[in-house]
C-alpha cells in the first residue's frame, strides 16, 4: 500500500493557469475526495496524477517513488475517465477485461487470433472472465457484458468505465465523477460497493465528485479546489463545520450556507443591519465581515418572537425536507432555511417570521474570505 | 488558302524535323497553311488516334503511320488511295520516288501513302572493345560467324562488359532482318500460309540461339540494351539506323563508335526490312486533297529527306536526295557513320504486314517466341514450330 502525493503542481494551457501550486498528499490507503466548482482543475489534476498530462512544475509521488517522469502505463494507476473513454470496438466485458489481460497475459497471448491458440492461457483467461463477471455483477451490468458501448445507455457506459478501473488492484485509484450519470438508488449501491472495495483493498483513492453527500460520506479527507488553487484539505466534518475560507463554506452544503454582511463594532461584536449578532470576534473594530450559518441552523419563530425579522418568500418541497426561502426585513438579504416537512406545514408565502440561529453555528469571515476566530465566550446576540 | 491539319507520332524524334519541313513548305506554298495537331507519343497511339477519329471532323488531313501499321488503315479504307494522284502527276520517278520506294507503302493495288522516313537495321559497334580483344575496328565483321567470334571474346573481358545487343524485343522487325537476310519470307505469296518455318526461318532462329550460346548475348530489355551500349559496356548493337543520331549524342566522347552494314545469312538472296513511316492522306475533301498531296510529296521528297536524315539517322527515302549534293551528298562525306544505312538501301524491301484482323497480334506472337530462345528456355526448332503454329492460327481462315 502506498500513498499518492501531488506536490506543488502547476499547470497552464497557453497562458491560462489551470493549476497553481496544488499539493495533495494522500496517505497510504486514504480515500480523498476532490471537490470544487466546474472548471477548477480537478480533471487536470487527476490526469497529471495518472501521467496523462505533464505538470509545468511540481512532482507526483507514489509511495516513496517520484513518478513525475514515468509513463502512465508504468504507474500502475487505475482511472475512471469523466468521458468514460470506452473502447468502442470491444464489448462491455472485453472493455473491463483489458487491464487484466494487459497484466496477466503475455504479449504473444494477447495477439488477436493467434493468441488464443497459445498454450497456458486457458486458465488465465478463465480467471480474467471470472473477475470481470464479479465486478460487473457488483455494478449490476452483468447482463450487458456482450454489448458494445454504442448499445448501452449513458449510465450503463459509466458503470463499464468504472468496472474497468475497479477490476484491477492498482497502486492508486483515480475516479473522475464516476457516478454522475447514475440514479440515486444505483448510486447509493455503487457508492457502497466502492467503499467496500476500498475497505477491503485499502488502495489510495482520489475521487472527484460533485455530490457533496458522496464526498462527505465516503472520504477520509476532502480537498476543496477553486480556480486552480487548493483551498482546504481536511476531514469532512471540518470542511462542513469548520470551513477555512468563505468559498469553502459557500461551496459545501446544499442549499448554500446563508451569508450576511456585517460590521465589527467597537466591542468586537458583529452587527447586522444595526443589530448585534455575534460577540467576541478577534477583528479590528470597523472592519466589514461576513457571517455564515447553515440553513438547518435556522429556527423559525412567530413574528412576535425575538430575532431577525424576515418574511417567507417561497417554500420548496424536497421529500424528506422542506426549504423555506426567506427575505430579511428591511432588504437585508435572502436566506434559506431547511426544515422538517412537518415544521413547514404551518408556513405560507408572505408570512412574517423571526429567525434564530443556534449558538455555535455561526461562522465569521474576514473581507478576504478567510475565517476569523471567534472568542470562546462567543454569544449569539440575536438568539439572546 | 487551305489549312492542312497534320498529325505525326513521336515528337521527341520528329518535332524539329516536322517544324523545319513545314516552315520551308509554307515558304514555297504560301497558299497552304500547315497546322500540327498534338502529336502522339508512339506509332501505336498515333494509329489509335486515327482509327478513333476516322470519319469525324477531328480527323487530321495528313498523318504519318508506321510502315508495319499501314496495312491496317489501308484495309479499313481510312487512308486515301494515292494512285489517282500519281497517275495525274505521272513523273514520280523523276521526282525521286522510285518504284521500290513506292512499293514500301503499297497494299494490293492501293498506294496507301508515301514512305517518309525509312530505316534499315545496321550494326553499331564499340571500336574500343574491338581493340581490346584484338579485332580490327576498321574491318568490321561481314558475316555472323565473325560477329559471334568477336562477341565471344568481348564477353570474356568481364567487368560487366557484354557482347551483343540484338534488338529482338517489341516487334518482328529485327527478326525480319534475320529472316529476310536469309532470303526467307513470312508467308506464302497467297498470304494463306506461314512460310517462315522453312530453312531460312530456322537459320534465323538458330543464329539468335548462337548469339546467346556462343556470343554470350544477355537478356536485356530494349532500353537496357541501349543504355548499356552507350555506356560503353556492349560490343555490338544491332538495331535501326534511325537511332543513330541519338546514339551519337548519348555516346559523346566516351568511346569510338562505329557502324557497319548488318551481316546477311545469305549475301545473295538476303534482303532487309524497311522501318519508318509513311505520309498518309486522310482527308476526303477534294480541295484539301490537292494541298495534302502537295505536302506529302514535299515531305517525302528530297528536301524532306535532307532534313530527316541528318536529324535522325534514317536513310533517305528519295533517290534524288541521296544522290544530289544539293541535299545530302556532302553530309555523307562528313558523317561516315551514316553511310552504313545508305549502303544497304538496295536491299530494302517492305516490312511485311500480316493480313487480317490479327495482323498486329501475329508480330507479338513471334516476339514472345523469340524471347524463349533468348532466355534459352526452348530450342530453336521448338520455337519455330510453336511460332508457326500460333501464327497460322491467327491468319484469316478464308
Amino acid at each position: 500500500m502506498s500513498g499518492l502525493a501531488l506536490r506543488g503542481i502547476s499547470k497552464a494551457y497557453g497562458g491560462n493557469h489551470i493549476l497553481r501550486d496544488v499539493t495533495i498528499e494522500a496517505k497510504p490507503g486514504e480515500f480523498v475526495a476532490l471537490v470544487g466548482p466546474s472548471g477548477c482543475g480537478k480533471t487536470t489534476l487527476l490526469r497529471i496524477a495518472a501521467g496523462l498530462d505533464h505538470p509545468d512544475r511540481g512532482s507526483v509521488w507514489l509511495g516513496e517513488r517520484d513518478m513525475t517522469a514515468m509513463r502512465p502505463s508504468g504507474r500502475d494507476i487505475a482511472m475512471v475517465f469523466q468521458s468514460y473513454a470506452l473502447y468502442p470496438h470491444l464489448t462491455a466485458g472485453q472493455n473491463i477485461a483489458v487491464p487484466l489481460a494487459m497484466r496477466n497475459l503475455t504479449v504473444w497471448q494477447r495477439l488477436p487470433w493467434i493468441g488464443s491458440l497459445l498454450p497456458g492461457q486457458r486458465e488465465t483467461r478463465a480467471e480474467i472472465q471470472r473477475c470481470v463477471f464479479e465486478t460487473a455483477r457488483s455494478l449490476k451490468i452483468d447482463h450487458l457484458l456482450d454489448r458494445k458501448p454504442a448499445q448501452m445507455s449513458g449510465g450503463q457506459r459509466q458503470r463499464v468505465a468504472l468496472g474497468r478501473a475497479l477490476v484491477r488492484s492498482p497502486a492508486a485509484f483515480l475516479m473522475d465523477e464516476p457516478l454522475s450519470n447514475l440514479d440515486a438508488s444505483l448510486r447509493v449501491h455503487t457508492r457502497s460497493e466502492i467503499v467496500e472495495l476500498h475497505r477491503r483493498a485499502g488502495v489510495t483513492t482520489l475521487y472527484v465528485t460533485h455530490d457533496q453527500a458522496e464526498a462527505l460520506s465516503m472520504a477520509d479527507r476532502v480537498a476543496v479546489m477553486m480556480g486552480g488553487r487548493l483551498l482546504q484539505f481536511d476531514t469532512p466534518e471540518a470542511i462542513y463545520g469548520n470551513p477555512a475560507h468563505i468559498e469553502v463554506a459557500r461551496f459545501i452544503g446544499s442549499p448554500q450556507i446563508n451569508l450576511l454582511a456585517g460590521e465589527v463594532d467597537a466591542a468586537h461584536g458583529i452587527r447586522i443591519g444595526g443589530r448585534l449578532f455575534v460577540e467576541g470576534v478577534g477583528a479590528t473594530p470597523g472592519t466589514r465581515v461576513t457571517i455564515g450559518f447553515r440553513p438547518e441552523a435556522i429556527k423559525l419563530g412567530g413574528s412576535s418572537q425575538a430575532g431577525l425579522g424576515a418574511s417567507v418568500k417561497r417554500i420548496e418541497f424536497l421529500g424528506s425536507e422542506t426549504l423555506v426561502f426567506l427575505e430579511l426585513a428591511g432588504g437585508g438579504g435572502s436566506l434559506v432555511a431547511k426544515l422538517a416537512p412537518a415544521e413547514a406545514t404551518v408556513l405560507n408565502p408572505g408570512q412574517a417570521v423571526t429567525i434564530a440561529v443556534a449558538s455555535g453555528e455561526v461562522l465569521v469571515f474576514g473581507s478576504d474570505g478567510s475565517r476569523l476566530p471567534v472568542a470562546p465566550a462567543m454569544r449569539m446576540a440575536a438568539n439572546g | 488558302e487551305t489549312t492542312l491539319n497534320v498529325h505525326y507520332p513521336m515528337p521527341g524524334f520528329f518535332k524539329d524535323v516536322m517544324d523545319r519541313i513545314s516552315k520551308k513548305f509554307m515558304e514555297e506554298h504560301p497558299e497552304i497553311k500547315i497546322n500540327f495537331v498534338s502529336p502522339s507519343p508512339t506509332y501505336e497511339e498515333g494509329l489509335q488516334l486515327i482509327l478513333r477519329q476516322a470519319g469525324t471532323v477531328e480527323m487530321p488531313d495528313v498523318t504519318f503511320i508506321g510502315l508495319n501499321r499501314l496495312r491496317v488503315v489501308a484495309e479499313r479504307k481510312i487512308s486515301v488511295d494515292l494512285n489517282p494522284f500519281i497517275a495525274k502527276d505521272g513523273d514520280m520517278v523523276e521526282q525521286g520516288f522510285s518504284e521500290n520506294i513506292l512499293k514500301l507503302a503499297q497494299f494490293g493495288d492501293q498506294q496507301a501513302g508515301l514512305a517518309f522516313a525509312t530505316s534499315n537495321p545496321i550494326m553499331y559497334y564499340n571500336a574500343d572493345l574491338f581493340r581490346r580483344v584484338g579485332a580490327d575496328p576498321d574491318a568490321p565483321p561481314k558475316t555472323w560467324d565473325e560477329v559471334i567470334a568477336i562477341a565471344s571474346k568481348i564477353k570474356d573481358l568481364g567487368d560487366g562488359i557484354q557482347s551483343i545487343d540484338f534488338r529482338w524485343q517489341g516487334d518482328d522487325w529485327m527478326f525480319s532482318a534475320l529472316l529476310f537476310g536469309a532470303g526467307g519470307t513470312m508467308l506464302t505469296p497467297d498470304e494463306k500460309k506461314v512460310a517462315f518455318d522453312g530453312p531460312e526461318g530456322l537459320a534465323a532462329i538458330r543464329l539468335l540461339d548462337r548469339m546467346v550460346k556462343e556470343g554470350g548475348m544477355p537478356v536485356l530489355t530494349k532500353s537496357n540494351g541501349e543504355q548499356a551500349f552507350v555506356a560503353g559496356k556492349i560490343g555490338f548493337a544491332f538495331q535501326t539506323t534511325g537511332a543513330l543520331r541519338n546514339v551519337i549524342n548519348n555516346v559523346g566522347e566516351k568511346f569510338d563508335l562505329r557502324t557497319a552494314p548488318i551481316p546477311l545469312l545469305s549475301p545473295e538472296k538476303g534482303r532487309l526490312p524497311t522501318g519508318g513511316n509513311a505520309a498518309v492522306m486522310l482527308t476526303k475533301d477534294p480541295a484539301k486533297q490537292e494541298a495534302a498531296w502537295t505536302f506529302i510529296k514535299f515531305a517525302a521528297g528530297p528536301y524532306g529527306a535532307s532534313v530527316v536524315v541528318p536529324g535522325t539517322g534514317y536513310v533517305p527515302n528519295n533517290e534524288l536526295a541521296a544522290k544530289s549534293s544539293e541535299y545530302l551528298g556532302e553530309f555523307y562525306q562528313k558523317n561516315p557513320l551514316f553511310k552504313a544505312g545508305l549502303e544497304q538501301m538496295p536491299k530494302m524491301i517492305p516490312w511485311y504486314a500480316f493480313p487480317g484482323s490479327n495482323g498486329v497480334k501475329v508480330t507479338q506472337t513471334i516476339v514472345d517466341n523469340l524471347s524463349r530462345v533468348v532466355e534459352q528456355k526452348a530450342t530453336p526448332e521448338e520455337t519455330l514450330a510453336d511460332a508457326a503454329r500460333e501464327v497460322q492460327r491467327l491468319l484469316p481462315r478464308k
Partner: protein
Amino acid sequence: MTTRSWNLARVLRLATLSSGALIFLGPYVWMVSTAMKPREEIFSSSLALIPDRWAAVENFSKVFTRVPMLQLLMNGAIVCAVILVVQVLVALPCAYALAKLRFPGARLMISGIMLGLLVPIHATALPIYVALSGAGVLNTYFALAAPFLISVFAIFLFLQFFRAMPDDLINAARLDGMSEFGIVLRVIVPNAWPAITAFSIFSVVAHWNDLFWPQIVVTETAMAPPPLGLIFFRAAEAGDDYGALMAATVVVTMPLLAAFLLAQRRFIEGITLTGLKG
C-alpha cells in the same frame, strides 16, 4: 506523453524511417542528377551524380522552349481544379447519404461504386469519347474533365470516414434546424478535413499526371496538360532525350510536391472528436 528524449525506440524509429527514405529518394536523386547532365554523361560505366559539365540550363531551357510548358502547366491547373471541385461536391453528399441515411438502393449504390472502382478508364474511354465528339466539345477543358466528374474513389473514401462520425453529432445538427445538406457542409466537412485533403491530393495528382485521356480528347497543344509536354522528349524507337525528359519531369512534379507540402498540414490539424461524452 512522448518525451523528446533519445531512447532506443526512437533511434530505431529514426533509423528505419531514414533508410526507408533513402530507398524512396534514390530514384529522384538520379532524376535530378540526370536533369543536370549533358546527354553523353548520362549513361556511363561509372555512377557519378555530379556532372562533369553542367547542362541544367540547356535541359531546362529545352523544357520551356520546345513545348509551351507554362501553358501546359496552366491547363493542368485549371483542369485539376475543375475536376477536384466537382468531384468533392458530388461525392460529399452522396457519401454522407450512404453513411448516415437509410434508403432503398443504398447497397446497390455501393455495388455501383465498387464497379466504378474496377472499371478501367480504357474500357469506358471509347463510349465517352464518342459522346463528347458527338456533342462537339472535344479540345475543351470540359472534355478533359468530363469522365472524372464523379470519383467513386472519393465516395468510397468519404463513406468509410463518415461512418465513424458519431450519430449524435448529426442528430444535434438536425435538431438545430440544419438540412441534410447543411449537415454535410457544416458538420461533416469541417470534421473530415484529413480525408478530404487526402482525397484532394490524390485527385490532383492523378489528373495532373494523366496521359491517357488527354491524348484522346485533345488534339491542340494549347489545351494539353503537362504530361503531353513530356512526350516531346521521348522517342520510343530511338531512345529518349533523358536529360530534358528528367528536367521536364522535375518541372511537372514540383508543383505537385509543393501542393502536397502545403496540404499535409491538414494531417497534423486532424480533428479528434472530443465534443462527445460516452
